[in-house]
């Protein structure tokens, strides 16, 4: 386990919080987080950093990252990520993205395929699949969401979400410092994913431009994104396969860091 160090990088939209550490590997590994804004203290990243250089920037609106007011849609998100890569002087990298981060990884790779060597998308959103809707994440009760995000009901974040749900009738009882980051993360997610709902209608037709060998991990207990989305990505990307993961919900990298690390290392190589 290699602890990642917090830092910042100046970008066109403002200062961006990032976590980086480790060295080695065939290419730097860029981790793109989900709408939960995970990265700081994440076990998966600490394991991966044992054998490679890992960089995890937080998207504007998450953590201390500035500049959400300059992001209006997924197009802005893609150009922001390109800017981050340039500022970090990463001519190319491997990308691992979870959910929203998986979508952003794909948007990056269709535009600048030469910047992405290999890619792992975990339960990615980003596509519209007829008959297989992505579950509503906005305006839902935290208790219900907890069941969809985690396979293990006892996972600590799932327990916290259920506890906060009980206080919703009188939210003044919840410490605002707990609420603030959630509000900011949700606003940032809404900016890119409110309508069209968590997808880009143009993305599917562009996926053929991706040159990186890609693995799409589908967690079998994912209550947010149906497996059909992983299949849709795999059928449109030239070199892509779907891997199913047992005993994991939507936030599989948090819940099952060991198996996810193995899959990532297997695909990206040493």
């Amino acid at each position, binding site marked *: 386990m290699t602890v990642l160090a917090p830092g910042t990088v100046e970008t066109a939209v403002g200062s961006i919080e990032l976590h980086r550490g480790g060295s080695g590997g065939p290419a730097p590994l860029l981790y793109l987080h989900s709408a939960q804004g995970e990265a700081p203290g994440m076990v998966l990243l600490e394991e991966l950093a044992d054998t490679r250089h890992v960089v995890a920037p937080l998207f504007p609106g998450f953590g201390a990252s500035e500049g959400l007011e300059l992001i209006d849609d997924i197009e802005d998100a893609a150009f922001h990520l390109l800017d981050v890569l340039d500022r970090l002087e990463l001519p190319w990298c491997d990308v691992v993205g979870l959910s929203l981060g998986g979508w952003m990884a794909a948007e990056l790779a269709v535009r600048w395929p030469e910047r992405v060597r290999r890619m792992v998308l975990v339960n990615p959103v980003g596509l519209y699949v007829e008959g297989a809707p992505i579950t509503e994440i906005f305006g839902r009760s935290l208790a219900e969401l907890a069941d969809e995000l985690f396979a293990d009901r006892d996972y600590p974040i799932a327990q916290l979400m259920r506890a906060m749900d009980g206080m919703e009738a009188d939210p003044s009882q919840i410490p605002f410092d707990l609420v603030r980051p959630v509000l900011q993360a949700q*606003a940032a997610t809404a900016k890119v994913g*409110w309508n069209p709902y968590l997808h880009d209608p143009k993305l599917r037709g562009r996926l053929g431009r991706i040159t990186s060998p890609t693995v799409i991990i589908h967690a079998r207990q994912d209550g947010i994104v149906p497996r059909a989305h992983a299949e849709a990505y795999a059928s449109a990307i030239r070199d892509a396969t779907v891997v199913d993961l047992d005993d994991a919900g939507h936030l599989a990298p948090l819940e099952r860091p060991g198996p996810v690390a193995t899959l990532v290392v297997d695909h990206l190589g040493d």
Partner: protein
Amino acid sequence: MRFFSFHLMPYPDLPADYDGPAWITCPNELFDPRLGGDLYNRYIDELVYAEELGFDGVCVNEHHQNAYGIMPSPNLIASILARLTSRVRIAVVGNALPLYDPPTRVAEEFAMIDCISGGRLIAGMVVGGGPEYYSFSLNPAHARERFAEAHELILKVWTEPGPFEYIGKHYKLRYVNSWPRPIQQPHPEIWIPGVGSLETLEFVARHRYAYMGIPYFHISVFERMFAMMREACRKEGYEADPLQLGWLVPVFVAETDEEARRRYEEHFWYFVRRLLPGINISPPGYTSVRSTENIMKNAGTFALNLDSWDQVVEGQYAIVGSPETVTELLAANVDRLGVGNLLGLFQLGTLPAADTKRSLELFAGEVMPKLRATFPGTQVSGADVATPAATS
């Protein structure tokens, strides 16, 4: 002091076994169109009757895809009122500007109502309720930006000669040139309703508009809200005119206090327990973090959390009683809140037509004259009202 009769146009016939929200996902199979037709006509009659009784104005508002208020287009109702009345101000409180694309539509329709009514429109502008952003699939993270831009555009439409080009972030219009233009110059009086968002208060103070406090909170929340509004005006270098402040409150008058509660209470609970659930959803990015913090402080006193009539009375969620009681309670609050506009919600929930009519009559006959006498300094009536100063 100005008196308005405000109508939400609620749907009073949700089945007893339906316990879901009244908003966004409330199945529209529950709407009976024949009953809907009767309701619209009855509710319009109740508003028209307010003019006959001597009110200064009537108010309508906009909500979509819900049973709480079946008035997705308040401008349709306002245009009917413009034709059926001759003296009262017609306050549309308001149009949810971000829902109109392009928002020049608001400038046009408001100008039409102002023309038809002979210059009696009060133009309300609002961001729209949280549920509206689900019902329209409109990005709530753009709500404030779109509101600000739409407001700027509408004011330009009314005050600058067309045609002109408008290039904003959200709206890009090559030929802006509204026919008609409003009778009231430079533009109709503008009201902004709100629940205490700091941005909204500052916006209203900056433009010298009027702020309407939205009900269903404990009276102490209104005290704080109006104090914040006065403070916001002071920061802009002036003292708030009472006519810049409006208090919206459910009111019911009967012969005695006992009679009033007996006739009113069940209808109030239908409103609170059947029509409010779902109204308070706050979509992501809809309010700034600092405003959310402020609004959350008040959330515990939201009417949805009420359990007993004692709490209703203590927090003055509704002013209910004999003419004497209602006069006394309203006088104390008007004085304390410093408001120059009283917006009474006389019909609420399932309250039947006969009770609504009787309450309006008792209010107009026995309460309103006493309040007018108590607050002569700000006494104003109908179309003689001075329009708060226009924007720069």
